[in-house]
């Protein structure tokens, strides 16, 4: 939002340079995660138990899915505040339909994906066709979608889900292969987004738009279509995250998503993962590693008996650290140049 005063925007560095930068952020995150796990494990041995490690991974899936979508729009110089109510709407719609009408799981998946795509399409159309700044569009749809949640649920809440749903949220893939299903889903989606962003024309277009929308337009990038699709993907992923949320926790209320401030959490995760909020570059793996790191840190604070009220302060400090370190590095390279 702030162009750097006094100096023209540094043109997008060559692919090689920023790739090494991203890799370093990912390495830092992995190292930090390992260090936190080892430290917490030294102090409290239960921390290293298999069930706790599994819990920490599972716990990060919902946020990671939302943040993956957020990564796409932030790379394209956008932002999506409406992910929180989209997540909540998907959670409460699928949860209520499952408990009341016994909606089978596969149709819940389809329903939720379609719902997220439509809500994302509304965002995308408003951003790209009418040219309203994304932060305003999604601020408006945030209110709209939150209202839809209340209209649909009418104050009811989901207290339990059928077994098939619970299995989808917690269960292992097969008895001989104890990989939890949500983690498999996350891995598949992560690979898909990585392929999309790094190896398909769509990803190149998104990066081009994020670096310089005017240049991208003149270079023949279909700016409108690309942007719209980015918001559709973000909405779809947020809705899928909502379904996994209700399956994993077995509960959903009218303030699911908005109450936990998933919109701010997902932006924080993306930033910690090394994506630049000014757009133009970003890291899919960084985002997922960022959400795992956050989950590990929060869980270790629980194990170390730090009161829960300090979690968000820790998160804020991590954002500041992540962002200021990269901004200082930026200044150094400029001075050297």
């Amino acid at each position, binding site marked *: *939002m*702030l*162009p*750097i*005063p*006094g100096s023209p925007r540094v043109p997008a560095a060559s692919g090689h340079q920023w790739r090494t930068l991203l890799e370093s952020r990912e390495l830092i995150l992995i190292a930090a995660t390992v260090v936190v796990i080892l430290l917490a494990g030294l102090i409290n041995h239960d921390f290293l138990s298999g069930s706790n490690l599994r819990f920490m991974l599972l716990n990060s899936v919902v946020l990671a899915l939302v943040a993956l979508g957020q990564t796409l729009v932030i790379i394209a*110089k956008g*932002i999506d505040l409406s992910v929180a109510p989209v997540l909540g709407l998907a959670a409460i719609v699928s949860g209520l339909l499952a408990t009341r009408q016994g909606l089978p799981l596969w149709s819940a998946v389809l329903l939720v994906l379609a719902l997220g795509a439509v809500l994302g399409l509304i965002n995308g159309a*408003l*951003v*790209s066709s*009418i*040219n*309203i*700044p*994304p*932060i*305003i*569009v999604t*601020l*408006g*749809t*945030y*209110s*709209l979608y*939150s*209202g839809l*949640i*209340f*209209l649909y649920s009418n104050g009811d809440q989901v207290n339990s889900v059928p077994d098939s749903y619970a299995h989808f949220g917690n269960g292992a893939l097969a008895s001989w292969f104890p990989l939890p299903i949500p983690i498999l889903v996350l891995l598949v989606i992560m690979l898909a987004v990585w392929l999309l962003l790094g190896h398909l024309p769509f990803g190149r277009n998104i990066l081009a738009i994020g670096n310089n*929308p*005017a240049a991208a*337009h003149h270079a023949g990038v*279909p*700016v*409108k279509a690309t*942007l719209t699709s980015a918001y559709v993907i973000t909405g779809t992923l947020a809705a899928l995250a909502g379904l996994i949320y209700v399956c994993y926790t077995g509960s959903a209320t009218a303030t699911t998503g908005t109450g936990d401030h998933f919109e*701010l959490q997902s*932006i*924080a995760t993306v930033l910690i993962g090394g994506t630049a*909020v*000014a*757009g133009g570059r970003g890291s899919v793996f960084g985002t997922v590693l960022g959400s795992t790191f956050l989950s590990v840190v929060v869980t270790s604070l629980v194990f170390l008996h730090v*009161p829960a*009220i*300090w*979690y*968000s*302060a*820790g*998160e*804020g*400090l991590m*954002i*500041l650290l992540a*962002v*200021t370190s990269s*901004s*200082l590095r930026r*200044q150094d390279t400029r001075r050297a140049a």
Partner: protein
Amino acid sequence: MTRPANAAPSVVSPVRRKPRLGSWERALAALLLMQLLFFSLVVPGFFDGVSGLLNMTTNFLPFGLVALGLVPVILTGGIDLSVGSIAGFSAVFMAILWKHFGLSLGAAVPLALLAGALLGSLNGLLITRTRTEPLIITLATSFVFTSITTAMAGADPPSGFPDRFNALGTGALWGVSYQLILFVVLAVVFGLLIARTRFGRSVIMVGYNRDATRYSGINVNATVLGVYVISGLMAALSGVVLAAYYSAVRGDMGDILLLTALTMVVLGGINIFGGEGSVLGAVLAVLILGFLRQGLLIAGFSDMVTTMAIGAILLIAITAKNLLGTPNTFVAQLQARFSRPSPPPPEKVME
């Protein structure tokens, strides 16, 4: 998150050099009047004399105070996501000083406002020193402030302030609530500050063209720091008023402020990328959204329908503005950017 340039047009529309001055404010004023008329005629119990109408404003003016404080920030092209947490912090801080340190509220309130200004200056310093987007910095600081506030408030935050203090939230002077008097005075102050002072001119110039502002000898960093101090101060004031309104404080009492206040500023016609907008527009938007909420609530709609309506109004208004008012095609935007005359007369700025 920089300027929007995401449309790919096939037709170049004629470029209108400058949107007609005040047309958005006129539209907002007409909308406000129509809305008040509509509610008065259709919703029984809405119109209860002029004083009833004025009293209704106490339900939403804390949002308006935050919105006023956000105006300069957004005029510089920045944003402050920490206003809600600063409001909560200051309210709790004031209550703690009063309850546990035995300060009179006359001393605690100024200290709480000072605390808000200091938190705002922390935002401003972080933004200018690290050259990081305000969105990130204020997102991060809001997390930190929220934690500190929750820790300060504890399980049983103070409540039950003396009546003289509560009057700030619910009392009235000759039938006009103190909140309204405060809001009107501050709105005039902000209007003069933005339109008539050197600082206000710098604020708009920073939002319009940061580099040019710097080259013309204006201290950009000081201006940016200033707007975040103002926004922190106004958030703190809003927190104090909310405390008086409820006669209680809670750590999360500021959470509701941000999105509504931001909506008010944006509906007021202030360009989210900075450089354009007026305090009058923001004030009208505060009244429109506030009375809309009250009208719908009195008509028996739930809080959530009201929220939806506010979201819808924001989107419809901005869509209408983009489609009708300003050039919205991509090439037209580019042309407009290059052909726009620089808005402030240089001799006044340079002195």
